[in-house]
């Protein structure tokens, strides 16, 4: 991928993925290796602190969770990405032909600089950050994923939306040749292409919202939404629109894909809320991938402190 990285790459990005899986194991192995090296050096006492510093990856960020991370293999082989098929295994299986480079993002609507940007240009000068977020799917399962991305607020600041803009809308690319789920069929998935998502401007400016270009320190795989996707961890996973080609600023609430397909089941906001059930199943609990029994779902997926103020005075039962 051609996305340029800022000079200060997080150490986690250069940590091999298999070591990421088991930090304890990593510490043990690294200690042994460095221990031998240190025996020849004069400063053996320093080796230990060096090792543990490295093993921690970058220091835990303000928004990171330290919960056990879902293995890379599960993050990349259990996906909802209907453009590649409706089964969880379909995206990994059917996305091989998809070409995430070169990539252009069209910026439109109520914005100072409407233009088509090469992805590299859009992200130029912005610093990617690693964020370890919980991801709660509306289907009542969840993961913990180390994303690499750029705060959406930083990108929006660069684009300079007009004060009249109240919402930002995102669209996924339409490429039926490379995305079998987009080809016409008798029933189809029930979604209309392009997949559309949107946020209120204040939601988009929230520091938790990021445009993601990588996972586990690697470029984003096709099945996870390469080359660039949205992640809003306090909302259900379907808000995370993938393979974004259009960013449009508007004063009207965008008609989002799932909201259009089944308005009584999926709202525009789609905030994780254990008190507001899906009409067909409970949202009070979730199965964390890799765990046997379910766990309680947290309000705003555990990000209340960061986002609750966005919804003060709003009836979340009505605006689900």
């Amino acid at each position, binding site marked *: 991928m051609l996305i340029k990285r800022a000079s200060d790459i997080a150490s986690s990005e250069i940590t091999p993925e298999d070591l990421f899986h088991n930090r304890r194991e990593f510490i043990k192995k690294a200690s042994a290796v460095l221990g031998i090296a240190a025996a020849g050096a004069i400063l053996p006492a320093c080796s230990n602190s060096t090792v543990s510093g490295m093993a921690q990856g970058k220091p835990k960020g303000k928004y990171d969770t330290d919960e056990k991370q*879902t293995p890379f*293999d*599960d993050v990349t*082989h*259990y996906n909802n990405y*209907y453009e590649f098929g*409706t089964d*969880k*295994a379909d995206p990994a299986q059917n996305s091989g032909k998809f070409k995430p480079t070169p990539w252009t993002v069209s910026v439109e609507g109520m914005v100072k600089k409407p233009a088509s940007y090469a992805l590299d240009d859009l992200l130029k000068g912005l610093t990617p950050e690693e964020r370890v977020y919980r991801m709660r799917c509306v*289907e009542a*399962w969840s993961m913990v994923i180390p994303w690499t991305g750029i705060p959406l607020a930083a990108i929006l600041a660069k684009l300079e939306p007009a004060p009249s803009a109240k919402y930002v809308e995102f669209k996924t690319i339409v490429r039926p040749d490379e995305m079998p789920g987009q080809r016409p*069929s*008798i*029933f*189809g*998935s*029930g*979604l209309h292409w392009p997949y559309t998502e949107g946020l209120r401007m204040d939601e988009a400016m929230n520091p938790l919202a990021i445009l993601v270009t990588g996972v586990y320190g690697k470029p984003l795989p096709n099945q996870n939404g390469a080359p660039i996707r949205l992640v809003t961890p306090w909302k259900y996973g379907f808000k995370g629109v993938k393979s974004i080609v259009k960013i449009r600023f508007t004063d009207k609430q965008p008609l989002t894909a799932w909201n259009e*397909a*089944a308005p009584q089941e999926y709202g525009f906001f789609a905030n994780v809320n254990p008190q507001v*059930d899906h*009409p*067909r*199943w*409970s949202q*009070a*609990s979730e*199965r964390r*991938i*890799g765990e*046997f*029994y*379910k766990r309680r779902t947290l309000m705003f997926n555990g990000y209340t402190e960061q986002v609750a103020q966005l919804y003060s005075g709003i009836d979340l039962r009505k605006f689900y």
Partner: protein
Amino acid sequence: MARFNRWWIFKPVVFLLCLVPMAWLLWDTFTGNLSANPVEDIRNRTGIWTLRFLMITLGVTPVRRLAGWPSLIRFRRMLGLFAFFYAFVHFITYIWLDQAFAWDEILKDVTTTRPFIISGLASFILLIPLAITSTRKWIGRLGGKRWQMIHRLIYLSAVVGVLHYYWRVKLDVSRPLAYGAVLVVLLGFRLAAAAVYDRRPVSVQRAPLR
């Protein structure tokens, strides 16, 4: 006698074939071949096999009439009991693996407006009297006519079961609709056959319909 023996040999074969989906599921479970969400896989696969066995069971009568294989009736009870078996495993998966015996959650699932859960539960419960009264003894105890009436509950169980599947999927309803179409054909055959039978003289009503 020779004819009887031949069928007798087939029965254990069919029995083992009916166990293949279960064996396959257990194999995948213990060799780590399921997806990242194994409980979901177990739930989906036992559910879909329940529907398949319901359809196969309902297919016995049309096939034996249309193909002129009346002996197929020997397998119907076993097939029906396998539908119940997969429904039972599916039900236990929900109660145990899914809800971890959290009865308050289960009660909430059933009592709040969740046609999805209610339909699944109803489809299963409707099969219980059929499983209980599946023995020869029960046919005698109830009398053929009443027994047959009770066992027509399978129609309702299958209809509610397909609805359960329909409500399960998020948007892509093509597969539930395919099952629905098969069910319409299977039940439609019975309506058509009944209509034809009604018009035939009583003396030929016992003959197989061709």
